[in-house]
Protein backbone atom coordinates (compact mmCIF):
# COMPACT_ATOMS: atom_id res chain seq x y z
CA UNK A 1 0.00 0.00 0.00
CA UNK A 2 2.84 2.32 0.96
CA UNK A 3 4.60 1.62 -2.31
CA UNK A 4 1.47 2.36 -4.29
CA UNK A 5 1.05 5.67 -2.53
CA UNK A 6 4.68 6.55 -3.21
CA UNK A 7 4.29 5.71 -6.87
CA UNK A 8 1.11 7.75 -7.08
CA UNK A 9 2.83 10.77 -5.52
CA UNK A 10 5.76 10.39 -7.87
CA UNK A 11 3.49 10.23 -10.92
CA UNK A 12 1.58 13.30 -9.78
CA UNK A 13 4.83 15.17 -9.21
CA UNK A 14 6.04 14.21 -12.65
CA UNK A 15 2.74 15.18 -14.20
CA UNK A 16 2.94 18.60 -12.58
CA UNK A 17 6.60 19.11 -13.51
CA UNK A 18 5.89 21.64 -16.29
CA UNK A 19 4.10 23.79 -13.74
CA UNK A 20 7.10 24.32 -11.51
CA UNK A 21 10.12 23.50 -13.62
CA UNK A 22 11.72 25.45 -16.41
CA UNK A 23 12.34 24.48 -19.98
CA UNK A 24 15.76 23.04 -19.36
CA UNK A 25 14.52 20.94 -16.43
CA UNK A 26 11.80 19.56 -18.70
CA UNK A 27 14.39 18.75 -21.33
CA UNK A 28 16.52 16.99 -18.72
CA UNK A 29 13.47 15.15 -17.42
CA UNK A 30 12.66 13.87 -20.92
CA UNK A 31 16.20 12.60 -21.32
CA UNK A 32 16.08 10.87 -17.96
CA UNK A 33 12.82 9.19 -18.95
CA UNK A 34 14.40 8.02 -22.21
CA UNK A 35 17.45 6.66 -20.40
CA UNK A 36 15.14 4.91 -17.94
CA UNK A 37 13.25 3.15 -20.71
CA UNK A 38 16.55 2.27 -22.37
CA UNK A 39 18.07 0.92 -19.15
CA UNK A 40 14.95 -0.96 -18.16
CA UNK A 41 15.02 -2.88 -21.42
CA UNK A 42 18.72 -3.51 -21.05
CA UNK A 43 18.12 -4.92 -17.60
CA UNK A 44 15.53 -7.40 -18.85
CA UNK A 45 18.40 -8.90 -20.76
CA UNK A 46 21.06 -8.45 -18.10
CA UNK A 47 19.47 -8.56 -14.67
CA UNK A 48 16.60 -10.88 -15.56
CA UNK A 49 18.04 -13.13 -18.27
CA UNK A 50 21.73 -12.97 -17.39
CA UNK A 51 23.01 -11.65 -20.73
CA UNK A 52 25.26 -8.56 -20.74
CA UNK A 53 24.66 -6.74 -24.01
CA UNK A 54 27.15 -4.15 -25.19
CA UNK A 55 25.23 -3.29 -28.32
CA UNK A 56 21.90 -1.92 -27.15
CA UNK A 57 22.72 1.48 -28.62
CA UNK A 58 22.42 -0.19 -32.03
CA UNK A 59 18.72 -0.83 -31.46
CA UNK A 60 18.31 2.60 -29.92
CA UNK A 61 19.68 4.04 -33.14
CA UNK A 62 17.48 1.83 -35.29
CA UNK A 63 14.45 3.12 -33.40
CA UNK A 64 15.67 6.70 -33.72
CA UNK A 65 16.51 6.53 -37.42
CA UNK A 66 13.32 4.56 -38.13
CA UNK A 67 11.16 7.16 -36.41
CA UNK A 68 13.08 10.00 -38.07
CA UNK A 69 12.64 8.56 -41.57
CA UNK A 70 8.93 8.06 -40.97
CA UNK A 71 8.44 11.56 -39.56
CA UNK A 72 10.30 13.09 -42.50
CA UNK A 73 8.03 11.25 -44.92
CA UNK A 74 4.77 11.26 -42.98
CA UNK A 75 4.58 13.70 -40.10
CA UNK A 76 2.50 11.87 -37.53
CA UNK A 77 4.02 11.39 -34.10
CA UNK A 78 2.29 8.12 -33.25
CA UNK A 79 3.12 6.52 -36.58
CA UNK A 80 6.74 7.57 -36.18
CA UNK A 81 7.15 6.25 -32.66
CA UNK A 82 5.28 3.01 -33.17
CA UNK A 83 7.08 2.52 -36.48
CA UNK A 84 10.46 3.05 -34.82
CA UNK A 85 9.64 0.48 -32.15
CA UNK A 86 8.46 -2.06 -34.70
CA UNK A 87 11.55 -1.67 -36.86
CA UNK A 88 13.84 -1.93 -33.83
CA UNK A 89 11.93 -5.03 -32.75
CA UNK A 90 12.34 -6.63 -36.15
CA UNK A 91 16.07 -5.90 -36.27
CA UNK A 92 16.62 -7.18 -32.75
CA UNK A 93 14.67 -10.34 -33.53
CA UNK A 94 16.91 -10.94 -36.51
CA UNK A 95 20.20 -10.19 -34.75
CA UNK A 96 19.00 -11.86 -31.57
CA UNK A 97 18.63 -15.05 -33.52
CA UNK A 98 22.39 -14.91 -34.18
CA UNK A 99 23.45 -13.61 -30.77
CA UNK A 100 21.57 -15.78 -28.30
CA UNK A 101 23.49 -18.88 -29.26
CA UNK A 102 26.26 -17.41 -27.13
CA UNK A 103 26.46 -16.52 -23.49
CA UNK A 104 28.68 -14.58 -21.14
CA UNK A 105 31.58 -12.62 -22.56
CA UNK A 106 31.04 -13.99 -26.06
CA UNK A 107 27.51 -12.70 -26.09
CA UNK A 108 28.78 -9.32 -24.95
CA UNK A 109 31.37 -9.19 -27.71
CA UNK A 110 28.94 -10.33 -30.39
CA UNK A 111 26.39 -7.70 -29.41
CA UNK A 112 29.19 -5.14 -29.34
CA UNK A 113 30.16 -5.98 -32.89
CA UNK A 114 26.60 -5.96 -34.21
CA UNK A 115 26.02 -2.64 -32.49
CA UNK A 116 29.13 -1.25 -34.13
CA UNK A 117 28.02 -2.63 -37.48
CA UNK A 118 24.83 -0.62 -37.12
CA UNK A 119 27.02 2.37 -36.24
CA UNK A 120 29.11 1.82 -39.37
CA UNK A 121 25.98 1.48 -41.44
CA UNK A 122 24.58 4.75 -40.07
CA UNK A 123 27.91 6.39 -40.79
CA UNK A 124 28.36 4.99 -44.28
CA UNK A 125 24.92 4.59 -45.86
CA UNK A 126 24.74 8.29 -46.50
CA UNK A 127 21.87 8.31 -48.97
CA UNK A 128 19.58 6.98 -46.28
CA UNK A 129 21.13 8.11 -43.00
CA UNK A 130 22.81 11.36 -43.98
CA UNK A 131 26.24 10.06 -42.90
CA UNK A 132 27.94 11.65 -39.93
CA UNK A 133 25.86 14.81 -40.22
CA UNK A 134 22.84 12.62 -39.66
CA UNK A 135 19.25 13.39 -40.51
CA UNK A 136 18.30 16.96 -39.74
CA UNK A 137 15.08 18.92 -39.58
CA UNK A 138 12.91 16.11 -38.24
CA UNK A 139 9.56 17.64 -37.33
CA UNK A 140 8.00 17.31 -33.91
CA UNK A 141 4.87 16.21 -35.65
CA UNK A 142 1.45 16.59 -34.04
CA UNK A 143 -0.04 13.77 -32.04
CA UNK A 144 -3.04 12.81 -34.05
CA UNK A 145 -5.51 10.10 -34.72
CA UNK A 146 -7.32 11.19 -37.86
CA UNK A 147 -10.93 12.00 -37.18
CA UNK A 148 -10.46 11.91 -33.40
CA UNK A 149 -7.95 14.48 -32.24
CA UNK A 150 -4.85 16.37 -33.16
CA UNK A 151 -2.55 17.91 -30.58
CA UNK A 152 0.19 20.35 -31.49
CA UNK A 153 3.56 19.23 -30.17
CA UNK A 154 5.55 22.41 -30.67
CA UNK A 155 5.55 23.40 -26.97
CA UNK A 156 8.02 21.31 -25.01
CA UNK A 157 5.45 20.67 -22.27
CA UNK A 158 3.15 18.83 -24.68
CA UNK A 159 5.90 16.60 -25.88
CA UNK A 160 6.97 15.99 -22.30
CA UNK A 161 3.54 14.55 -21.58
CA UNK A 162 3.79 12.24 -24.58
CA UNK A 163 7.13 10.96 -23.37
CA UNK A 164 5.85 10.64 -19.82
CA UNK A 165 2.84 8.64 -21.01
CA UNK A 166 5.03 6.31 -23.05
CA UNK A 167 7.45 5.93 -20.14
CA UNK A 168 4.70 5.09 -17.67
CA UNK A 169 3.22 2.61 -20.11
CA UNK A 170 6.63 1.04 -20.74
CA UNK A 171 7.42 0.80 -17.04
CA UNK A 172 4.01 -0.67 -16.27
CA UNK A 173 4.31 -3.28 -19.03
CA UNK A 174 7.80 -4.08 -17.84
CA UNK A 175 6.50 -4.62 -14.34
CA UNK A 176 3.89 -7.00 -15.66
CA UNK A 177 6.39 -8.91 -17.75
CA UNK A 178 8.97 -9.49 -15.04
CA UNK A 179 6.30 -10.57 -12.57
CA UNK A 180 4.67 -12.94 -15.03
CA UNK A 181 5.45 -16.60 -15.71
CA UNK A 182 7.57 -15.46 -18.63
CA UNK A 183 9.59 -13.14 -16.39
CA UNK A 184 10.10 -15.97 -13.92
CA UNK A 185 11.24 -18.21 -16.76
CA UNK A 186 13.85 -15.65 -17.80
CA UNK A 187 15.09 -15.40 -14.23
CA UNK A 188 15.34 -19.16 -14.14
CA UNK A 189 17.54 -19.08 -17.22
CA UNK A 190 19.68 -16.39 -15.60
CA UNK A 191 20.08 -18.41 -12.39
CA UNK A 192 20.82 -21.73 -14.04
CA UNK A 193 20.71 -22.49 -17.71
CA UNK A 194 21.17 -26.23 -17.21
CA UNK A 195 18.49 -26.43 -14.56
CA UNK A 196 16.09 -24.56 -16.80
CA UNK A 197 16.66 -26.93 -19.69
CA UNK A 198 16.11 -29.88 -17.39
CA UNK A 199 12.70 -28.68 -16.30
CA UNK A 200 11.55 -28.41 -19.88
CA UNK A 201 12.28 -24.80 -20.75
CA UNK A 202 13.43 -23.93 -24.25
CA UNK A 203 16.25 -21.62 -23.25
CA UNK A 204 16.90 -20.15 -26.68
CA UNK A 205 13.30 -19.22 -27.21
CA UNK A 206 13.18 -17.16 -24.01
CA UNK A 207 16.57 -15.62 -24.61
CA UNK A 208 15.35 -14.53 -28.01
CA UNK A 209 12.15 -13.15 -26.51
CA UNK A 210 14.14 -11.26 -23.91
CA UNK A 211 16.51 -9.94 -26.56
CA UNK A 212 13.67 -8.77 -28.75
CA UNK A 213 11.79 -7.06 -25.94
CA UNK A 214 15.00 -5.36 -24.80
CA UNK A 215 15.56 -4.26 -28.40
CA UNK A 216 12.04 -2.83 -28.56
CA UNK A 217 12.59 -0.89 -25.34
CA UNK A 218 15.83 0.48 -26.74
CA UNK A 219 13.92 1.25 -29.94
CA UNK A 220 11.20 3.07 -28.02
CA UNK A 221 13.74 5.22 -26.19
CA UNK A 222 15.39 5.91 -29.55
CA UNK A 223 12.12 6.66 -31.34
CA UNK A 224 11.18 9.26 -28.74
CA UNK A 225 14.44 11.14 -29.38
CA UNK A 226 14.17 12.63 -32.90
CA UNK A 227 11.01 14.63 -32.23
CA UNK A 228 12.79 16.15 -29.23
CA UNK A 229 16.15 16.92 -30.87
CA UNK A 230 15.05 17.17 -34.50
CA UNK A 231 18.32 15.42 -35.39
CA UNK A 232 19.66 11.89 -35.32
CA UNK A 233 23.35 11.10 -35.77
CA UNK A 234 25.52 7.95 -35.77
CA UNK A 235 27.01 8.36 -32.25
CA UNK A 236 23.62 7.16 -31.00
CA UNK A 237 24.69 3.69 -32.13
CA UNK A 238 28.24 3.86 -30.80
CA UNK A 239 29.40 1.46 -28.10
CA UNK A 240 30.04 4.34 -25.73
CA UNK A 241 26.31 5.01 -25.87
CA UNK A 242 25.67 1.32 -25.16
CA UNK A 243 27.69 1.81 -22.00
CA UNK A 244 25.16 4.30 -20.63
CA UNK A 245 22.40 1.84 -19.69
CA UNK A 246 25.08 -0.50 -18.37
CA UNK A 247 26.44 2.21 -16.09
CA UNK A 248 23.00 3.43 -15.07
CA UNK A 249 21.80 -0.08 -14.29
CA UNK A 250 24.86 -1.05 -12.32
CA UNK A 251 24.69 2.25 -10.45
CA UNK A 252 21.08 1.71 -9.54
CA UNK A 253 21.16 -2.01 -8.96
CA UNK A 254 20.81 -4.97 -11.26
CA UNK A 255 18.48 -7.23 -9.34
CA UNK A 256 15.82 -4.78 -8.43
CA UNK A 257 12.97 -3.56 -10.53
CA UNK A 258 13.60 0.11 -9.83
CA UNK A 259 17.40 -0.09 -10.02
CA UNK A 260 17.77 0.97 -13.66
CA UNK A 261 15.36 3.87 -13.18
CA UNK A 262 17.07 5.19 -10.06
CA UNK A 263 20.41 4.63 -11.75
CA UNK A 264 19.32 6.60 -14.82
CA UNK A 265 18.30 9.56 -12.71
CA UNK A 266 21.59 9.49 -10.82
CA UNK A 267 23.77 8.93 -13.86
CA UNK A 268 22.21 11.68 -15.94
CA UNK A 269 22.10 14.28 -13.19
CA UNK A 270 25.60 13.47 -11.99
CA UNK A 271 27.07 14.12 -15.39
CA UNK A 272 24.84 17.11 -16.04
CA UNK A 273 25.97 18.75 -12.83
CA UNK A 274 29.64 17.84 -13.07
CA UNK A 275 30.10 19.27 -16.57
CA UNK A 276 28.91 22.65 -15.35
CA UNK A 277 31.72 22.96 -12.87
CA UNK A 278 34.76 21.42 -14.45
CA UNK A 279 36.22 20.58 -17.79
CA UNK A 280 37.61 17.48 -16.08
CA UNK A 281 34.21 15.85 -15.91
CA UNK A 282 35.59 12.53 -17.14
CA UNK A 283 37.91 12.33 -14.17
CA UNK A 284 35.10 13.05 -11.71
CA UNK A 285 32.79 10.54 -13.35
CA UNK A 286 35.59 7.97 -13.40
CA UNK A 287 36.29 8.42 -9.70
CA UNK A 288 32.61 8.11 -8.90
CA UNK A 289 32.39 4.89 -10.92
CA UNK A 290 35.44 3.43 -9.20
CA UNK A 291 34.18 4.37 -5.74
CA UNK A 292 30.77 2.92 -6.49
CA UNK A 293 32.20 -0.38 -7.72
CA UNK A 294 34.63 -0.68 -4.82
CA UNK A 295 32.18 0.59 -2.25
CA UNK A 296 28.82 -0.90 -3.03
CA UNK A 297 28.32 -3.34 -5.79
CA UNK A 298 24.65 -4.02 -5.42
CA UNK A 299 23.79 -0.61 -6.73
CA UNK A 300 22.22 2.24 -4.89
CA UNK A 301 18.86 0.54 -4.50
CA UNK A 302 20.42 -2.31 -2.53
CA UNK A 303 21.26 0.04 0.29
CA UNK A 304 17.59 0.39 0.95
CA UNK A 305 16.55 -3.17 0.34
CA UNK A 306 19.49 -4.90 2.06
CA UNK A 307 19.40 -7.63 -0.58
CA UNK A 308 21.39 -7.88 -3.75
CA UNK A 309 25.06 -7.31 -4.12
CA UNK A 310 27.52 -9.98 -4.80
CA UNK A 311 26.93 -12.62 -7.35
Amino acid at each position, binding site marked *: MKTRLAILILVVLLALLPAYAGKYALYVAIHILLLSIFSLGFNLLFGYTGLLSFGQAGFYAVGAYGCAKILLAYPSLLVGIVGGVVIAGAVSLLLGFLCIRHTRIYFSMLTLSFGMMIFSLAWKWRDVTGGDDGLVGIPRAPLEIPGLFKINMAPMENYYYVVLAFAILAIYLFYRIVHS*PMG*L*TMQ*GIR*DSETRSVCI*GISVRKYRL*LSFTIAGMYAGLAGALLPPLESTVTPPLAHWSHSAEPVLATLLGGVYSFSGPIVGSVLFYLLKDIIVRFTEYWQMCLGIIVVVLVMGFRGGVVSIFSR*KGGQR
Partner: protein
Amino acid sequence: MKAIIRTESLGKYFGQMAAVHEVTLTLQEGLFTSVIGPNGAGKTTLINILSGYMLPDRGKIYFREKEITRLGPDKRVKMGISRSFQVMNIFPRMTVFQNILLPVLSRLNKTSSAFSSLQSQKEAVEEAEKILGEVWLQEEKDSPGGELSHGDQRLLELGIAVASNPQLCFLDEPSSGMTPIERIKVLELVKKLASERKTTFIIVEHDMDIVFSLSDWIVVMNRGEVLAEGKPGDIRENQEVRDIYLGEEI
Protein backbone atom coordinates in the same frame (compact mmCIF):
# COMPACT_ATOMS: atom_id res chain seq x y z
CA MET B 1 5.38 -55.05 -15.67
CA LYS B 2 6.42 -52.81 -18.51
CA ALA B 3 9.81 -51.39 -19.42
CA ILE B 4 9.88 -47.66 -18.77
CA ILE B 5 13.30 -47.06 -20.30
CA ARG B 6 15.46 -49.30 -22.38
CA THR B 7 18.90 -48.81 -23.92
CA GLU B 8 20.80 -50.59 -26.64
CA SER B 9 24.62 -50.60 -26.60
CA LEU B 10 25.00 -47.06 -25.30
CA GLY B 11 28.46 -45.62 -25.51
CA LYS B 12 30.02 -42.30 -24.55
CA TYR B 13 33.73 -41.70 -24.99
CA PHE B 14 36.03 -38.88 -23.89
CA GLY B 15 39.12 -39.37 -25.99
CA GLN B 16 40.57 -42.74 -25.07
CA MET B 17 38.40 -43.11 -22.02
CA ALA B 18 35.09 -44.91 -22.20
CA ALA B 19 32.80 -43.20 -19.72
CA VAL B 20 29.94 -45.45 -20.77
CA HIS B 21 30.46 -48.54 -22.91
CA GLU B 22 28.04 -51.07 -24.38
CA VAL B 23 25.32 -50.43 -21.85
CA THR B 24 22.20 -52.37 -22.66
CA LEU B 25 19.59 -52.08 -19.95
CA THR B 26 15.89 -52.51 -19.47
CA LEU B 27 14.44 -50.83 -16.44
CA GLN B 28 10.94 -51.63 -15.28
CA GLU B 29 8.21 -49.16 -14.42
CA GLY B 30 7.48 -48.95 -10.73
CA LEU B 31 10.70 -50.52 -9.53
CA PHE B 32 12.77 -48.30 -7.27
CA THR B 33 16.13 -48.69 -9.02
CA SER B 34 19.59 -47.74 -7.78
CA VAL B 35 22.71 -47.40 -9.89
CA ILE B 36 25.84 -48.09 -7.87
CA GLY B 37 29.51 -48.48 -8.55
CA PRO B 38 32.84 -47.03 -7.51
CA ASN B 39 33.91 -43.49 -8.36
CA GLY B 40 34.39 -43.01 -12.07
CA ALA B 41 32.20 -45.98 -12.93
CA GLY B 42 30.14 -43.85 -15.33
CA LYS B 43 26.98 -43.52 -13.26
CA THR B 44 26.57 -39.79 -13.69
CA THR B 45 27.41 -39.99 -17.37
CA LEU B 46 24.73 -42.64 -17.81
CA ILE B 47 22.17 -40.41 -16.13
CA ASN B 48 23.29 -37.45 -18.19
CA ILE B 49 22.73 -39.46 -21.34
CA LEU B 50 19.38 -40.87 -20.27
CA SER B 51 18.07 -37.44 -19.27
CA GLY B 52 19.23 -35.88 -22.52
CA TYR B 53 21.79 -33.63 -20.89
CA MET B 54 24.48 -35.35 -22.99
CA LEU B 55 24.12 -37.09 -26.31
CA PRO B 56 25.59 -40.60 -26.58
CA ASP B 57 28.24 -41.40 -29.17
CA ARG B 58 26.69 -44.78 -29.85
CA GLY B 59 23.55 -46.74 -29.13
CA LYS B 60 19.87 -46.05 -28.73
CA ILE B 61 17.47 -45.07 -25.96
CA TYR B 62 13.76 -45.91 -25.80
CA PHE B 63 11.29 -44.37 -23.39
CA ARG B 64 8.15 -46.48 -23.26
CA GLU B 65 9.36 -47.99 -26.51
CA LYS B 66 9.59 -44.59 -28.24
CA GLU B 67 13.06 -43.69 -29.40
CA ILE B 68 14.41 -40.58 -27.69
CA THR B 69 18.16 -40.94 -28.37
CA ARG B 70 18.65 -37.49 -29.95
CA LEU B 71 15.97 -35.53 -28.11
CA GLY B 72 17.05 -32.50 -26.07
CA PRO B 73 16.47 -32.46 -22.32
CA ASP B 74 13.64 -29.95 -22.52
CA LYS B 75 11.75 -32.25 -24.90
CA ARG B 76 12.32 -35.23 -22.62
CA VAL B 77 10.92 -33.31 -19.67
CA LYS B 78 7.76 -32.74 -21.64
CA MET B 79 7.51 -36.52 -22.19
CA GLY B 80 7.77 -37.19 -18.48
CA ILE B 81 11.47 -37.61 -17.71
CA SER B 82 13.12 -35.34 -15.15
CA ARG B 83 16.24 -35.34 -13.06
CA SER B 84 18.19 -33.80 -10.23
CA PHE B 85 21.89 -32.97 -10.20
CA GLN B 86 24.76 -34.23 -8.13
CA VAL B 87 26.29 -30.77 -7.85
CA MET B 88 23.60 -28.51 -6.53
CA ASN B 89 21.66 -26.96 -9.36
CA ILE B 90 18.83 -24.84 -8.09
CA PHE B 91 17.81 -21.25 -8.93
CA PRO B 92 19.84 -19.42 -6.26
CA ARG B 93 18.38 -15.90 -6.60
CA MET B 94 14.76 -17.01 -6.84
CA THR B 95 12.67 -17.80 -3.77
CA VAL B 96 12.08 -21.39 -2.77
CA PHE B 97 8.49 -21.08 -3.86
CA GLN B 98 9.51 -19.74 -7.27
CA ASN B 99 12.03 -22.56 -7.59
CA ILE B 100 9.16 -25.01 -7.42
CA LEU B 101 6.63 -22.88 -9.26
CA LEU B 102 8.78 -22.55 -12.38
CA PRO B 103 8.92 -26.27 -13.27
CA VAL B 104 5.20 -26.53 -12.55
CA LEU B 105 4.49 -23.62 -14.90
CA SER B 106 6.75 -25.21 -17.47
CA ARG B 107 4.85 -28.46 -17.27
CA LEU B 108 1.53 -26.64 -17.61
CA ASN B 109 2.92 -24.80 -20.68
CA LYS B 110 2.37 -21.44 -19.05
CA THR B 111 5.89 -20.03 -19.31
CA SER B 112 5.14 -17.89 -22.33
CA SER B 113 2.36 -16.06 -20.53
CA ALA B 114 3.79 -12.56 -20.48
CA PHE B 115 1.36 -10.27 -18.73
CA SER B 116 -0.53 -12.32 -16.15
CA SER B 117 0.72 -12.23 -12.60
CA LEU B 118 2.16 -15.32 -10.95
CA GLN B 119 -0.61 -15.29 -8.36
CA SER B 120 -3.23 -15.57 -11.07
CA GLN B 121 -1.83 -18.96 -12.11
CA LYS B 122 -4.05 -20.68 -9.56
CA GLU B 123 -3.50 -24.26 -10.65
CA ALA B 124 0.27 -23.90 -10.70
CA VAL B 125 0.38 -22.06 -7.37
CA GLU B 126 -1.68 -24.72 -5.63
CA GLU B 127 0.43 -27.48 -6.99
CA ALA B 128 3.67 -25.73 -6.06
CA GLU B 129 2.36 -25.23 -2.51
CA LYS B 130 1.54 -28.92 -2.33
CA ILE B 131 5.04 -29.93 -3.46
CA LEU B 132 6.59 -27.51 -0.98
CA GLY B 133 4.71 -29.42 1.71
CA GLU B 134 5.83 -32.73 0.34
CA VAL B 135 9.49 -31.77 0.53
CA TRP B 136 9.14 -30.03 3.92
CA LEU B 137 10.07 -26.56 2.72
CA GLN B 138 6.91 -24.59 3.50
CA GLU B 139 8.67 -22.61 6.21
CA GLU B 140 11.37 -21.47 3.82
CA LYS B 141 8.92 -20.50 1.10
CA ASP B 142 10.11 -16.91 0.65
CA SER B 143 13.85 -17.25 1.20
CA PRO B 144 16.13 -17.18 -1.82
CA GLY B 145 17.10 -20.71 -2.78
CA GLY B 146 20.79 -19.90 -2.54
CA GLU B 147 20.49 -18.94 1.13
CA LEU B 148 19.10 -22.30 2.32
CA SER B 149 21.17 -24.74 4.34
CA HIS B 150 22.83 -27.54 2.42
CA GLY B 151 20.28 -30.11 3.46
CA ASP B 152 17.38 -27.85 2.52
CA GLN B 153 18.94 -27.14 -0.86
CA ARG B 154 19.04 -30.89 -1.51
CA LEU B 155 15.38 -31.08 -0.64
CA LEU B 156 14.73 -28.19 -3.00
CA GLU B 157 16.63 -29.95 -5.74
CA LEU B 158 14.38 -32.95 -5.19
CA GLY B 159 11.34 -30.73 -5.19
CA ILE B 160 12.29 -29.20 -8.53
CA ALA B 161 12.81 -32.65 -10.00
CA VAL B 162 9.38 -33.91 -8.95
CA ALA B 163 7.63 -30.63 -9.81
CA SER B 164 7.71 -31.62 -13.45
CA ASN B 165 5.44 -34.48 -12.34
CA PRO B 166 7.62 -37.04 -14.10
CA GLN B 167 6.84 -40.64 -14.80
CA LEU B 168 10.55 -41.31 -14.66
CA CYS B 169 12.90 -39.34 -12.46
CA PHE B 170 16.68 -39.63 -12.17
CA LEU B 171 18.23 -38.51 -8.90
CA ASP B 172 21.99 -38.10 -8.91
CA GLU B 173 23.16 -38.60 -5.33
CA PRO B 174 20.17 -36.92 -3.72
CA SER B 175 21.67 -37.23 -0.25
CA SER B 176 25.28 -36.26 -0.86
CA GLY B 177 26.83 -34.09 1.78
CA MET B 178 24.16 -34.89 4.33
CA THR B 179 24.47 -36.46 7.78
CA PRO B 180 23.54 -40.16 8.01
CA ILE B 181 20.27 -39.33 9.74
CA GLU B 182 19.32 -36.76 7.10
CA ARG B 183 20.13 -39.29 4.39
CA ILE B 184 17.73 -41.85 5.68
CA LYS B 185 15.02 -39.22 5.96
CA VAL B 186 15.58 -37.97 2.42
CA LEU B 187 15.63 -41.39 0.85
CA GLU B 188 12.54 -42.43 2.73
CA LEU B 189 10.95 -39.29 1.38
CA VAL B 190 11.92 -40.33 -2.13
CA LYS B 191 10.43 -43.74 -1.57
CA LYS B 192 7.24 -42.13 -0.28
CA LEU B 193 7.04 -39.81 -3.29
CA ALA B 194 7.53 -42.79 -5.55
CA SER B 195 4.52 -44.57 -4.22
CA GLU B 196 2.29 -41.51 -3.88
CA ARG B 197 3.13 -40.00 -7.26
CA LYS B 198 3.48 -43.22 -9.18
CA THR B 199 6.91 -42.04 -10.30
CA THR B 200 9.66 -44.45 -11.17
CA PHE B 201 12.87 -43.25 -9.52
CA ILE B 202 16.31 -44.20 -10.67
CA ILE B 203 18.92 -42.98 -8.21
CA VAL B 204 22.66 -42.92 -7.97
CA GLU B 205 23.66 -43.38 -4.36
CA HIS B 206 26.75 -44.17 -2.34
CA ASP B 207 25.32 -45.23 0.98
CA MET B 208 25.09 -48.98 0.55
CA ASP B 209 22.95 -49.56 3.60
CA ILE B 210 20.31 -47.27 2.23
CA VAL B 211 20.60 -48.66 -1.28
CA PHE B 212 20.13 -52.20 -0.18
CA SER B 213 17.30 -51.46 2.17
CA LEU B 214 15.29 -49.26 -0.19
CA SER B 215 15.88 -50.52 -3.72
CA ASP B 216 13.77 -52.95 -5.65
CA TRP B 217 16.42 -53.30 -8.32
CA ILE B 218 20.13 -52.54 -8.41
CA VAL B 219 22.40 -51.86 -11.37
CA VAL B 220 26.12 -52.13 -10.69
CA MET B 221 28.51 -50.28 -12.96
CA ASN B 222 32.26 -50.46 -13.23
CA ARG B 223 34.53 -48.69 -15.71
CA GLY B 224 31.63 -47.62 -17.85
CA GLU B 225 30.07 -51.03 -18.18
CA VAL B 226 27.21 -52.77 -16.44
CA LEU B 227 28.77 -55.35 -14.20
CA ALA B 228 25.61 -56.84 -12.82
CA GLU B 229 21.96 -56.09 -12.19
CA GLY B 230 19.37 -57.73 -10.10
CA LYS B 231 17.45 -57.75 -6.84
CA PRO B 232 19.34 -56.52 -3.74
CA GLY B 233 19.74 -60.01 -2.37
CA ASP B 234 21.28 -61.34 -5.60
CA ILE B 235 23.65 -58.39 -5.91
CA ARG B 236 24.82 -58.84 -2.34
CA GLU B 237 25.85 -62.38 -3.18
CA ASN B 238 27.55 -61.49 -6.47
CA GLN B 239 31.28 -62.21 -6.21
CA GLU B 240 32.32 -59.72 -8.91
CA VAL B 241 30.46 -56.96 -7.15
CA ARG B 242 32.07 -57.89 -3.86
CA ASP B 243 35.45 -57.71 -5.58
CA ILE B 244 35.09 -54.19 -6.82
CA TYR B 245 33.86 -53.08 -3.42
CA LEU B 246 36.75 -54.90 -1.81
CA GLY B 247 36.88 -54.34 1.89
CA GLU B 248 33.66 -52.47 1.98
CA GLU B 249 30.70 -54.00 3.68
CA ILE B 250 27.88 -54.37 1.23
